[in-house]
């Protein structure tokens, strides 16, 4: 069987609390990470992502405490990213209870880090976080939370990172992020077709139709969303019901 398409609520975490950024600014508190993660698990989420949007050294300790507490009651995969700078950060984050870590800036600055981590922990633990912004006919990679152009083409960088051992790509469109106007379907499809690892689409989700679109036309393996879940507009179960009605293969409760 092909794998089911995954629905992944993302919790933007800052100093131990969940916030949701609009274009990476104007952060607003919406809840406690372990509580929200388990709530989404019960709604049928296939995976959870924690993104540390402040990523200071002190913040990392608080984040690890939240990860540890979450891992005790979460029985679906947990990916943690934001501020992961070194091999040691990856190891410590996995040890705290994450199943995967996502790396952006550190991988751009030192691509060898991808290989080092993949060799030690396995490719499945190493997620390349790729933030891209349209530039003419293509997309440019940005590091440092979307503030710094890296001088790399998004599709080329995705391929290169996979050759180096990245096991998954978390692809965020900076143009779409926070707009609620839909994912960048074209960017997503371009990256999906260029690589042999799963691609998680992120940035721009405002409606369930956006999720349907990026998983079908965009060919993404998974869709990440935040605000449509955090503010109670829709549950993960609502999303899956609609996906199923459109013939998209999803994981559902079989009565346990």
């Amino acid at each position, binding site marked *: 069987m092909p794998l089911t398409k995954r629905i992944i609520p993302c919790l933007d975490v800052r100093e131990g609390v969940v916030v949701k950024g609009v274009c990476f600014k104007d952060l607003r508190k919406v809840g406690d990470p372990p509580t929200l993660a388990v709530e989404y698990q019960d709604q049928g989420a296939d995976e959870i992502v924690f993104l540390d949007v402040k990523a200071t050294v002190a913040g990392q300790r608080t984040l690890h405490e939240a990860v540890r507490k979450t891992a005790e009651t979460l029985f679906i995969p947990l990916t943690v990213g934001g501020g992961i700078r070194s091999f040691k950060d990856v190891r410590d984050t996995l040890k705290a209870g994450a*199943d995967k870590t996502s790396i952006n800036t550190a991988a751009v600055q030192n691509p060898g880090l991808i290989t080092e981590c993949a060799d030690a922990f396995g490719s499945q633990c190493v997620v390349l976080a790729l933030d891209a912004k349209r530039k003419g006919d293509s997309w440019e990679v940005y590091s440092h939370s979307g503030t710094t152009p890296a001088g790399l083409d998004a599709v080329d960088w995705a391929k290169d990172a996979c050759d180096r051992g990245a096991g998954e790509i978390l692809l965020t469109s900076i143009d779409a992020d926070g707009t609620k106007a839909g994912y960048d379907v074209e960017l997503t499809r371009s990256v999906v077709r260029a690589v042999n690892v799963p691609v998680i689409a992120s940035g721009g989700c405002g409606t369930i139709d956006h999720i349907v679109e990026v998983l079908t036309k965009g060919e993404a393996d998974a869709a990440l969303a935040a605000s449509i879940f955090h503010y109670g507009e829709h549950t993960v179960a609502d999303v899956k019901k609609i996906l199923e009605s459109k013939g998209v293969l999803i*994981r559902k409760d079989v009565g346990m």
Partner: protein
Amino acid sequence: MRVSIMDYGVGNLYSIAKGLERSGGEIEIVTDPRALARSEAIVFPGVGAFGAAMDVLRPVREELRRAIAEGVPTLGICLGMQILFESSEESPGTGLGVFGGRVTKLLSGRVPQMGWNDVKSSDDPLFDGIPQGSKFYYANSYICQPTEKVAVAETEYGQRFAAAVRKNTLCGVQFHPEKSGPPGLKLLKNFVALAEGNQ
């Protein structure tokens, strides 16, 4: 039942420890593999790489093989299942070789296989009470090719492969039960029950 989880020094052991605890197991995290041979039950978790895990276990390979042969209940998860076999394309060197066969790279398009897939189980105590059609979470680039008839469940991902193997109380699962929601937790519970029945 005291269940010893081997810590190779990498990765998340919280979820498997908590999952087994919920299943009625008393958990011990073991960093010195010599302690494993005296365990009531052993779990090899699914984190890291074949070569690195075997580097940790190789000094006590013979003791472990003997303990498993004498019936110490054992569950290998993902990589932990793979090291129960003879060898792997991932790294040179031998595995524990308590199952015959080798570990090969997945041939399908998107590798690692990362996500939820179907598991077709036979009527086996490991899958007791788990409805057919339940999905389990996979994160693997390699699969086991048993030479004996030990597969008790199968999954298809470009090719068919052993999702679960069992020989008495020696068990291996290629998916991650600790990451597979309610069906996964039930499987852990079934393993603990199987191990306890053996006491």
